[in-house]
């Protein structure tokens, strides 16, 4: 008998651990629309299997909870069954000995409260509210509903121009989105069940890179109706594009020198080269039904009321361009600038010179990363991004953070700005920060930072860029009657503004600062509903036939990720950092698509909206 022995994994344990990974990926790939009660019952079964078996609530209670939920699912229970589930879960949560029971019961409890209607529908009407309306996960998660399996199949077939035509049916910014879309489509990609999500954005970029110039479809017969679009960003231009194709005459009012909105004045060119942005915008304008009026601000140069008189319908898509302040002493020092200010200047071609300067950026989102990486390219000596939570809690895309670090920027986490120190001339000289300790979770599901028992610190610097969020310049519109809810325009699901006939709104000015693809989706929705409002029912279609899928074996395969130019080189210029796929990579990556438009539910319920 050995006194101690080295622990080795038995084979079964090694296999089970592999299965845990499979389950993790599988849960991530759950399509939207599943029965929440059924899912909760399934999770509970997993939780129950984790029980050690010592304590009553967990050993017996979780099993009985499962039985009750199964009764509900079969439609055998009644409202008392739902109450009993709630009570039992509460007792388990209150009386279990360890997290295995407490957390399992809490999951059930959250559900019984959070989706009680689903429970009640099962017991009252023996029915389920769930339904898989859009059977293709990527399409379901794309705010613009782009036909992703369709264009991936076209890329696979080498039909790049057709891929662009198909994308444009739902999104007139294929090139832009190929570069900077946040790709919510990839989150639930069914491929995750096998290995990892298809690199959808990378394939879109490949299509855009290789399609050449693709002419836009012809516009429908002129309707004689006119639509004003206020704001020439992605939302406004998307609406303008579809309205133009529908035969309406569109005028886009843009307050700045050029159209593009945040794409031009918010996203640095090393992520989105201006030439490529312009190619999308030029294609949109090439429909011929759009007049672009730049340098005119509605609400100042002309009132909304006047615009409403001049046009048959109005779409407001002014974005979120005002900056938020930190509200700390010293913020008015020279050298303290807002992210919006910096990025707008760069967008205007007026790049500030940070040569030899120490730059501090405050914030943890994608805009903060854009400022951080831009500061590096503007010649700064030291670039430090100060964030009050943990790096892991940043809302910026992880690859953006990683790239910034690779380019020599510092991420100073767990530091909360206290005040800005200035020199005798009023120039910023340093940011005083209070170290933080990560604390209890807040409502957003992230741990809240709290002041650590540690002294304040001074970060010496010359430039401080505040990138903690943007707001909406809503006042001029509010004064003319547009409803404003918590700082954003209050539009309904169809984009219309209540109590203002013929006025629609969408994009950041409705959602608050969000993603490009959400703004594009909002533009598309608004175009459809403005068309209906004007008394028409034009349809938008691509007229592209999609290659038939072939059933094949599904061995696990690595995902092709996009490389970046070497950090040492790219940090010196504003040229595009990301490299596209090689033909070999694009062929392989597009071949990983499982074609959920066909296999599974797609072939039954239709994996494709050919027209909208």
């Amino acid at each position, binding site marked *: 008998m050995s006194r101690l022995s080295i622990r080795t994994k038995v084979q079964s344990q090694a296999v089970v651990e592999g299965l845990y990974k499979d389950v993790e990926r599988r849960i991530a790939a759950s399509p939207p629309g599943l029965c929440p009660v*059924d*899912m909760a019952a399934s999770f509970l079964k997993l939780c129950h299997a984790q029980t050690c078996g010592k304590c009553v609530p967990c050993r017996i209670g979780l099993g009985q909870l499962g039985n009750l939920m199964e009764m509900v699912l079969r439609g055998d229970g009644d409202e008392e069954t739902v109450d009993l589930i709630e009570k039992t879960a509460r007792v388990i949560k209150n009386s279990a000995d360890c997290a295995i029971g407490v957390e399992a019961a809490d999951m059930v409890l959250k559900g019984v409260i959070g989706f009680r209607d689903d429970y009640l*529908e099962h017991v009252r*009407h023996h029915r389920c509210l769930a*339904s*898989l309306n859009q059977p293709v996960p990527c399409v379901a998660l794309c705010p613009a509903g782009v036909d992703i399996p369709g264009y991936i199949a076209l890329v696979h077939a080498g039909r790049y121009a057709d891929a662009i035509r198909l994308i444009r049916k739902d999104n007139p910014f294929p090139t832009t989105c190929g570069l900077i879309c946040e790709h919510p489509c990839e989150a639930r990609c069914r491929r995750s069940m096998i290995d990892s999500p298809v690199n959808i954005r990378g394939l879109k970029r490949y299509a855009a890179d290789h399609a050449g110039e693709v002419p836009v479809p012809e516009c429908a017969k002129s309707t004689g109706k006119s639509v004003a679009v206020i704001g020439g960003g992605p939302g406004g231009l998307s609406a303008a594009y579809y309205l133009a194709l529908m035969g309406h005459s569109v005028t886009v009012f843009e307050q700045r020198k050029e159209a593009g909105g945040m794409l031009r004045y918010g996203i640095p060119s090393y992520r989105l080269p201006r030439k490529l942005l312009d190619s999308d915008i030029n294609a949109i304008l090439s429909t011929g039904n759009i007049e672009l009026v730049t340098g005119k601000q509605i609400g100042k140069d002309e009132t909304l009321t006047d615009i409403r008189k001049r046009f048959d319908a109005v779409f407001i898509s002014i974005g979120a361009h005002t900056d938020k302040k930190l509200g700390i002493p010293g913020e008015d020092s020279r050298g303290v600038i807002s992210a919006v200010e910096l990025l707008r200047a760069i967008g205007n071609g007026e790049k500030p010179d940070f040569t030899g300067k120490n730059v501090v950026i405050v914030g943890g989102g994608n805009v903060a990363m854009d400022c951080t990486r831009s500061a590096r390219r503007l010649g700064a000596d030291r670039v430090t991004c100060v964030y009050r939570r943990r790096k892991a809690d940043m809302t910026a895309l992880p690859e953006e953070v990683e790239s910034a670090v690779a380019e020599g920027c510092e991420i100073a986490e767990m530091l909360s700005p206290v005040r800005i120190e200035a020199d005798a001339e009023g120039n910023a000289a340093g940011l005083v920060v209070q170290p933080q300790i990560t604390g209890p979770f807040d409502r957003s599901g992230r741990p809240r930072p709290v002041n650590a028992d540690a002294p304040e610190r001074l970060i010496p610097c010359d430039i401080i860029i505040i990138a903690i969020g943007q707001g909406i310049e809503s006042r001029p519109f509010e004064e003319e009657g547009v409803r404003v809810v918590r700082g954003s325009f209050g539009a309904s699901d169809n984009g219309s503004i209540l109590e203002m006939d013929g006025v629609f709104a969408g994009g950041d000015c409705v959602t608050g600062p969000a993603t490009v693809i959400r703004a594009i989706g909002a533009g598309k929705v608004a175009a459809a509903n403005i068309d209906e409002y004007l008394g028409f029912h034009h349809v938008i279609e691509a007229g592209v036939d999609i290659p038939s899928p072939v*059933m094949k074996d599904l061995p696990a395969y690595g995902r092709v990720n996009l490389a970046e130019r070497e950090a040492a080189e790219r940090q010196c210029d504003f040229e595009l950092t990301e490299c596209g796929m090689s033909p070999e990579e694009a062929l392989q990556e597009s071949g990983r698509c499982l074609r959920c438009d066909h296999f599974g539910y797609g072939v*039954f*319920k239709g994996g494709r909206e050919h027209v909208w």
Partner: protein
Amino acid sequence: MVNLTIDRIPVTAQEGTTIMEAAALAGIPIPHLCYLKGINEIAACRVCVVEVEGTERLLPACDNVVLEGMSVLTNSPRVREARRTNVELLMSQHSGECMSCVRSGNCSLQTIANDLNILDGNPFPKDLPVDRWDKEAPLFRDSTKCIKCMRCVNICDKVQDMHIWDVEGTGGHTNVNVSLGREIMNSDCTFCGQCIINCPTGALRERDDTAKVWRALADPSKTTVVQVAPAVRSAWGEAFGMTTEEASEQRLAAALRRLGFDYVFDTNFAADMTIMEEAGEFLEQLTHPENHTFPMFTSCCPGWVRFLKGQFPEMTGQLSTTKSPHQMFGATIKTYFAELKGIDPHDIFVVSIMPCLAKKAECAEPNQNDACGDPDVDVVLTTREMNRMFRADHLIPGLLKETPFDAPLGIASGAGQIFGVTGGVMEAALRTAYYAVTGTNPEPDAFREVRGFDGWKESVFEIQGKQLKVAVASGLGNTRKLITALKKGEVQYDFVEIMACPGGCSNGGGLPIHEGFNLTPERAAALYKLDLNNPIRFSHENPGVQEIYDNYFEKPLSEKAELLLHTDHFGWEMPAGPNHQRKA
């Protein structure tokens, strides 16, 4: 062309052919359950899986096309194992009560289980879904027999464009049910029954009303009268393996007599009366166009009437008020015939044998009771129910001596015969309308242009210098297109005939069911043959009809005719469809 081998047999097939079709060409019928060509090719049952050499996964033959050089095995050990297991799995969620199932002997699941020699000891425990269906509805569903092949969903979606069925729930609790959480009787279901005749098992059928008929037949105080719709005669014998010639009208009448009916009449007689009334109504409208909205719609198909009232209720007033033939006949039997025979109409029990499910709902409409306050027709049986009664009475119809329908309500013209096929009502009406306008008969086949199985046909005819624009549609998907085009002003017609079932009553939801083939063209051809061989080709020349107008109704649209032969389509409620809100 693509060259491949299937079970080592060299096969050449056109590009794009599925493995299933290519195998069939080579004489290899690959077993399947969910597949319904062109309509339900969703590869759900996985019974048709085959092995393609070099591929690890088994491929469904219905959903994969042949490729050059492919080597397909339909009976490899892996295929045999998968096919059997998948059938066993389906059986574990199927009640398996074959002895009390109307589809026993005509059930795809039963056939394949027998073929696979699955005797006993299914390794999977029974796991039956809970069945909660409104058993009073004309359409009967048993979820313990449903194999979720989704054919009903797709027939209703793609062919009928009614979207009555949908998948409900997800995961292991997935079920098929009336869409949008509705109950069948609160839905806008037309009861066309197309889902039934495409169901591979006994999950969908008509509500069985044979017990009511047996009860009436056993009641000595009842005079039992049965009538037979046109399309029934061309299809009933299929269930007994009879040829069209063997399954004659006279043999059908003989079999019904053997069940004990006191009178066996021909609905075709009433079809001729329908023509008299409907043609009269149409001519009246043409004479006073200012009082009417055109087109006038036929009203003999209750599935269509339900469709219009549910989907486009604002157009209900354009339906001809003429009752459907069997309802007209019911009212005539309980008045004219009752008086003739001196029978209290309350003691008459009228049974209609129909190719149709919707007629079951029609005879229960609250205002189909004009004769004596009782329902004009007491029970509607589908052809399948009638055939089950024949079986219950161990009849061998092929051996029966032919006997004619009873007089005087048993005489029919050829025009009445063709009511059972799309275009038939229009053609019959035009024959008589022509006569009514010109005073002379046209060539009997003058209006044959409206024949054929196109879903939406249109023709222009000239009668005495007046151009008549008519249209004929069958199938509710086609019908919705036609009505939508009418509403948009893209088309204009004077007279439109609609039948809810694609191809008309010859493809009715109440006719015998055949897996894998459709006998509609043959059934229709049999009706046209009956028309051609009938010495009377015009409804107005039916001597029985002439007699009844002389003795009782005086003339079409007379006060008595209006009372008994016409109906108020606004007299009952039809649940409005979500489609109406969606598309109108």
